[in-house]
């Protein structure tokens, strides 16, 4: 089976798994989605933090990572700020201003203003990574496991409390 065929089957299985999980559980999980050409399928939580904090700016294949971050106010943004960044909104803003001012990064994350926009851009920008409410994941999207867990797993770390 060709790679695209495999990806379609996996995406279909993932969506079927989503339907099998109670809505109360899956609605609060936040999926990490990457551009279809990104080779990674699993990241550790440490690696995810490094990527979101721009301490890691390149994928292992050498392509640049483009971070798409949902604008406030959104449940998935709150989860990412609380769990990955462990920062308040003010601290998050100061963090990126300092990063750019120190020339650690050429640009801050691209801000997206809707779930639809995040979905469109993550498949359009090579190397892109973003986060979506798990309900908003559609077939064909590439969802990363975190420490081996998918958003449907009970031990998945990105979940609203």
């Amino acid at each position, binding site marked *: 089976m060709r790679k695209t065929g495999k990806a379609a089957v996996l995406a279909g299985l993932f969506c079927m798994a989503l339907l099998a999980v109670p809505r109360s559980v899956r609605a609060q999980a936040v999926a990490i989605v990457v551009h279809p050409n990104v080779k990674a399928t699993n990241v*550790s939580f*440490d690696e995810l933090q*490094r990527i979101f904090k721009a*301490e*890691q*700016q*390149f994928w292992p294949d*050498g392509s*640049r990572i*483009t971070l798409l971050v949902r*604008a406030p106010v959104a449940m998935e943004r709150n989860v990412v700020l609380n769990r990955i960044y*462990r920062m308040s*909104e*003010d601290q998050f*803003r*100061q963090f*990126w*201003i*300092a990063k*750019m*001012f*120190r*020339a650690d*990064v*050429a*640009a*801050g994350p*691209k*801000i*997206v*203003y*809707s779930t*639809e*926009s995040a979905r*469109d*851009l993550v498949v*359009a*920008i090579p190397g892109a990574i973003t986060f979506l409410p798990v309900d908003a994941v559609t077939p064909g999207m590439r969802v990363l496991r975190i420490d081996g867990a998918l958003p449907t797993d009970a031990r998945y770390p990105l979940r609203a409390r």
Partner: protein
Amino acid sequence: MRRCMRFILASMLITSAPGVAAQEHPAEALPQEGTPTFQGFLFGDVTYLASKRGGSQGFLAGQLVGHGNARLSDRLTFFGELSASARENTYLIEVERAILRYDFADELKLSAGRYHTPVSYWNTAYHHGLWLQTSVARPEIIRIGGTFLPVHFVGAMMEGTFSSRVGSLTYAAGAGNGRGTIISRAGDAGDVNSNRATVFSVGVRPRALSGLGIGGSLYNDRVPMDSVGVGERILTGHVVWDHGAPEIIAEYAAIRHDAPAGDATTSDGFYVQAGVRLPGALWRLKPYGRFENMDIATDDAVFAPNLADYEAVIGGVRWDFEALATLKAEFRREQSAGGERLNSLYFQAALVVPSTH
């Protein structure tokens, strides 16, 4: 001056545009092949000073700093920082940083230009953004315009970060012009002697203690004091905690000078700054204190004619009354060259204007 102000304002207007476009038409946020992107900031401050030291007092307009990051391609970036500093009858315009950098990978980035020398944590963490730093002013050992540590560096740099589950290791290695004939300056128009300066810095951040940073640097140069010059070796170290409510920054620097006719001398300096963001409803307040000391060897061939021993105790409070603006009140008790201890009171408003966020 007017041209510079126009440039800074025009840059800010240009950089504010992409954010608006992205909001109304998300598809426009897609990168266009070969189209550079630009993001910028404007930092500003106004300080009120009452002091028994003499010199300028009252309201000080401070620095207006424009900073821009231009991504010219996927891997090529230009970073620029311009400042306008108030002087008695004019403004001094200065190119603080101008760096062209090519990113090969996280572990290897090559660049050339004018930097803030990576010989001090403060110098590379806060640059000229007073809004970013907790206190009103820099410590004396790394003061802007000071001579103790070389603030600026003109040359080329290789830098990168190695990350693992244990933590991260960041390094920077550079070669450049070193100090100019005015030793507080960096030899912007070329090296004044045939001896290039070198700098190497390294820092580690363990993942288990998020917020802890430990690092150090080594800097070698020949200071153009006479026809031969004076050998200079700088060794620095720092320990910081910069995540969460507490903030601790401690730095030490020792500078050895080897005059051709005379013994080697070592002058040193350090500071320890601690602050804490208050909990609960008082989270916008951050009281802080700092002790600093600089000890200049009496027969130091480079420093003795210009610098004196210095000691200061500082206490203040920072009030982040808005997300992008802060007010600081600071009391400072200083002693220079073993003389009388003098008190000063500072009030400062500092802000940042980002193009996005």
